[in-house]
Each structure stands twice: as C-alpha cells, then as structure tokens.
C-alpha cells in the first residue's frame, strides 16, 4: 500500500452552465433588478454565492472516477473534447475542488498545465526564470543551482537579460519549457504542454518527458498525441463524457479510443452535418483498402493502398467535370500532403450515380502512426462538398524499402525512397 502515488475515489465535478434569466415583463425585470442586490448581498455575506442554485442547469464534467496510480507509473489520459481530462487534471492539481469524492496524493507534486505560467512580459528572461520557478514550486536555492542548466536548455543565452516581450514566440516557449523541464517532483501532472511549438521543440519536450519517466517518477499526463502516449506511458486511462471507460495498457486503450472515434467518424460520413459546399455531390462513405482491395482498419508502410469514396448525387445525373481532393494530416494536425485530381490527371473526374471513386496511392510513403484525411469535391469550380477529418488512416510498421528492415518510428512522418552510391 505504501507504493500508491495517487488515489482517486469516486470523484465528481458539477459545473453550472450559464444562468438562465426568466424575467417576463419589464416590471418584473425592474423589480428584480432592485431587489436582487439585497438578496445577493445576503447570500454573499453568508458565503453562499458560489453554491450552485437548484434552478441552474448543471453538467457533470466528471462522474464517479476512481483509480489508483502506483509510484513510478507513467499514466496517459486520453479522451475526446469535453471528456473531462482537463477537469481531472485541475482537481488533481488542486486548482478546483471536486464536488463529490476525494483524491489523495502521496508525495511532493508539481503540475504543469501550461508552460510559462506567470511569465511577465516586462521582466527579463533571467527574472522570469526565477518568478516562474517559484510559481511552479521550486525553492530559490534550487533555481539558483539549476539556473545555468535551464538557460543552456532553453538556448536563449544571448537574450537572457532582454525583457521577454521582445522574444519571438519560439524563444518564449523554449525558455518556459526549460524552467518546467527542471522541476523535480516525485509526482508530475502534465497537460497538453507538448501541443505547442515546432516539431523540433516537440521532440525535445517528448525526450525530456521520457527522461523524467525513466528516472522513476510518477507522471500523469493528458495528450492527444497517441505516439507519445504509446511510447512513454506504462498505462493509459480513457475518459468519455466525464466517466472512466478503460484503464489498461496504452496500446489497447488507444485502440479502444480510436475504434470509438472511428465509430463516431465512420458511420457518420453520410450523416455528418459539419460539411460545407453546395451539395450537388455528397460523400457518404470513405474507407481504406489494402493492396488486395479489402477494407481494413490499418495499412502498412510501403503497401499499395486505396481510399474508396462513396457518394450520392441528389439530382441523379452524371457529373463529368468534378475535381476531388483528399488531404492528409498527421496525428498533431499538421498538414502532410494532398491528392488533388486536377494535378495528378489532366482529365476531370466523372461521377456516376451509384459508382465509387478510388484514389490509389502506390507504395504508401507514410511512417507508422495515425493520420486523418479531409475530402472535398468541386464541380465547375464551385465547392459542392467538404468534410474535414472524413476518415482516419492508421499505418503500422512495414518493409517500405524492401530490405526487411522496418524504419524506426520516430523520424518524421514520411518515408522517402532513396539509394546510396559513391563515385
């Protein structure tokens, strides 16, 4: 039992979502405006102001969450928007109180919900290191000891005595992260701090997180970066609508999450309302085919694949001057490449009611990971349908180079065919 780092018992958090005013007439409104200050003042003095009134609409951002984290575990939390991830972190960081249940944290804890919290633009880099360090819970002596290391890590030595408002956003971030990276708590609670900055910076952050994890600290972090979750975490939690759905190995939790989002994103293409365009053509289904033409969940690097698109044409007439594009983005939302019919072929696309449209990609040059794609269709230069994140493409390791050697996971999103020679 002595090895528990975090224990959470039936935590729930109720939020009020906006107060609805129910004034009917001007007279009521005025009367209420006059009496309200007195009623409010009474409430206020009793300190009851903050308690949610019965009439207000409320929402459970978290409900009945229970779990335990052992010392030394690295826990990743995943879930869609509004699943309650941030609320959970805020409760564990003691920023907000739970409405029900309790949590226990055994050991010295530091939370990092944002990098550069409390940075003041009018202070210099040096001054901000001290201020930010103190805010994150470091002792002055500790900051002084690590100061040189922090500065070196941030790579802004030359500007350390410049006020931070003159920093580029990249420098600002590097300095902020450098301070955060030198926290040495027993338990570290981290929010999506990695979702900022350029790719090189993100890699550096991930590396640092990996080091922290290897040192045997307990880390609890939220991320949308599945690659980070699967490579860093020993266990993952899946939150959905404020409830804890699964707690298992990162791999299986990620699969569960993706299959759920696929369910969310798979059925819907025909039902999705968040689309743009005139509607002469509507995509109803998008699926990924492997080199044997089978619909699959996951493809392999280097395989010949196809994206198969089903569509409907409300007028039931053949369209012969369409342009279609499928645009791929990486797990962090970065744009990768687009397959645009107008550039890959001189001819327009013919859309026949009832047929399917295939986009064939030979020798898929994507590294293992999870990708999403958006599709659009223009007819006679007019946008008729656009669905962003219409589907997902899960790529696993494959023999892209035909050498029997699987390329390493971490070097970028693309694999590029090449040869070596000496002359």
């Amino acid at each position, binding site marked *: 039992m*002595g090895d528990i780092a975090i224990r959470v018992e039936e935590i729930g958090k109720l*939020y009020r979502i906006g107060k609805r005013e129910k004034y009917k007439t001007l007279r009521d409104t005025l009367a209420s405006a006059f009496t309200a200050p007195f009623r409010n003042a009474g409430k*206020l003095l009793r*300190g009851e*102001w*903050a308690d949610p009134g019965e009439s207000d609409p409320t929402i459970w951002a978290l409900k009945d969450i229970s779990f335990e984290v052992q010392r030394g575990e690295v826990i990743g939390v995943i879930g869609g928007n509004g699943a309650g991830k941030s609320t959970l972190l*805020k*409760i*564990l*960081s*003691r*920023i*907000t*109180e*739970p*409405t*029900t*249940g*309790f*949590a*226990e*944290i*055994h*050991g*010295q*804890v530091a*939370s990092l*919900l*944002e990098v550069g*919290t*409390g940075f*003041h633009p*009018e*202070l210099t880099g040096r*001054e901000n290191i*001290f*201020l930010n360090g*103190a*805010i*994150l*819970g470091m*002792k*002055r002596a500790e900051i002084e000891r690590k100061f040189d290391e922090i500065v070196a890590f941030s790579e802004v030595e030359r500007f350390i005595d410049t006020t931070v408002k003159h920093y580029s956003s990249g420098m600002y971030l590097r300095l902020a992260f450098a301070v955060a990276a030198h926290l040495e708590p027993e338990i570290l609670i981290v929010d999506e701090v990695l979702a900022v900055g350029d790719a090189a910076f993100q890699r550096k952050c991930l590396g640092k997180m990996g080091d922290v994890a290897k040192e045997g600290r307990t880390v609890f972090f939220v991320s949308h970066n599945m690659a980070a979750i699967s490579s860093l975490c020993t266990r993952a939690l899946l939150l959905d609508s404020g409830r804890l759905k699964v707690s298992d190995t990162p791999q299986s939790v990620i699969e569960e999450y993706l299959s759920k989002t696929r369910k969310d994103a798979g059925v819907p293409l025909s039902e999705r309302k968040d689309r743009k365009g005139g509607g002469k053509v509507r995509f109803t289904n998008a699926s990924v085919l492997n080199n044997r033409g089978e619909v699959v969940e996951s493809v392999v690097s280097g395989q010949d694949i196809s994206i198969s698109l089903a569509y409907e044409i409300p007028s039931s007439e053949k369209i012969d001057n369409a342009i279609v594009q499928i645009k791929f983005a990486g797990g962090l939302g970065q744009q990768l490449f687009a397959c645009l019919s107008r550039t890959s072929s001189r001819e327009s696309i013919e859309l026949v009611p009832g047929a399917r449209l295939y986009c064939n990609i030979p020798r898929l040059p994507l590294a293992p990971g999870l990708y999403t794609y958006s599709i659009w269709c223009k007819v006679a230069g007019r946008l008729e349908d656009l669905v962003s994140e219409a589907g997902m493409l899960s790529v696993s390791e494959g023999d892209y180079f035909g050498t029997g050697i699987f390329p390493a996971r971490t070097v970028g999103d693309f694999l590029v065919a090449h040869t070596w020679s000496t002359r």
Partner: protein
Amino acid sequence: MEESVQVIRIEPSKGWVALQLKELWAYRELLYFLIWRDVKVRYKQTALGAAWAIIQPVFTMIVFSLFFGRLAKIPSDGIPYPIFAYAALVPWTFFSQGLGQAANSLVGSSNLLKKVYFPRLSVPIASVLSGLIDFLIAFIVLLGMMLYYGIHPTLNVIWLPFLLLLTVITSLGVSLWLSALNVHFRDVRHVLPFLTQFWLFATPIAYPSSLLSESWRTLYSINPMVGVVEGFRWALLGVETAPGPMLIVSSLVALALLVGGVFYFRRLEKTFADVL
C-alpha cells in the same frame, strides 16, 4: 517510509474552512517573488519611474495646503499645514494604493489561479506589501520635510513600527474582502474609486480630529485609518493629543477586518478558478 511522505487530500470543502496559514508560510518564497515582481514591474515604461511614489502624496499635499490650509484656514494642531497633511498622506497613499492594487489582483492574475496551485492569499498580500517600497520613498521625503520645518520627533517615534503594522493590517483586511468580492462581482472595480474618495474625507487627513470632542473622537476611530493617521502625526510631529483610546479602537477594528477578511477569502477561494 510513510512518515516521510506528505499526503495531500483533495476533497470538497464545506462551509468555513481552515486558514492554513502554515501553508502560506511554506510558500513564503513565492510571496517574496510576487512582491518582487510587483515592485519591478510597477514603474516599468514610465518616464518618471519611482518618482511617482513621491509625486502623488506631494501633489495632494500641495493641493490640500492651498485649498484647506490657505483658503479654508483649517486648523492643523499648531503644525505647519503642509507637513501636517503630508504626514497623513504617506500612510494614506499606502493604504489607498494597496486597495487599488489588491482589489484587482485576483482578477489580474486569473491565468495563474487557473493553472497553478498555491495559497491564493499570497496574491492580495503581495499586492499590498509591494506598496511598502513606495511608502518608504515617500517616508524619506517626510523626514526631509521634518528637517526643513525643524520638527524633531519625540520619543513616541518608537511606536512607528506598530503604526506601520496597523496600516498594513487595515489595508490588507479591506483588500481581502474587496479582492474576493471582485471575483464574483466586478462591481467592486466601479465602487473602488468612490470608496477611496469617501474614505479619504472620512479620515482626518485634511483636517485634525481634534475638531471633534474626545468621546466623538473615539467613536470616529472605528475607521481604522483614523488611528493610523493620528498615530503618525503624534509619533512623528509631536502633536499633543495622545491618540491612546483612538489607537485601541482602530487596532481592534483593523484586526477584526483582517480576521474576517481572511476567513471570508478562504471561504470563497474554492470558487475562484471556476468563476474567473
């Protein structure tokens, strides 16, 4: 190993909560850094810099001396009117500036409150205490004026630290109420200028409290700034009326304000992150 591990328990709090002053003490370095930040930033990008700490009380003194001293011929307990007013304006400026800074302090650091845990009390406390530097600067000017007017402080000057403490307590007490209220009701921001102006005239700064009879004076000092101001004059300028009873009443009220303020603040504290 259990005893070496600190356990933090996170659960919903009900009603009035413990003050956890111990924790506030444990975070004293943060408090220091917050004060240090406020002091550093206060006069950044101003042309006159720290001179502002002097300009405000000095100009108010000049205006008061002209209108109240010269024109209205308000008595000043036998002391030259300018220094009579200035000795009161020094603690008053500390008080009113403290209120102004602290009342908006929580709203101003909402990004901190929403992202990091630390004892929330440190925010308004830092705002109030950072004014001590300005106080010190303005106080040096006061000493200069005493030299100029040839006024020698009496032995009562040993009470000065206590009087300063009383000023801090009063300022902090009111600030805690206002800052916590301001989170829920931004009305505070609009009330504040009015409140400080009203308070300025309810305090014997432009006039001596000796205009009132002894018994009224004691009642008057329910306004803790009355005790502060009269105390300063008595300790530094050697005004004859010893403000004993006034100081006692003022101190009690100031303490009550502070204690009530701390409890009230702690009670509302849990809602800050959700409301800001």
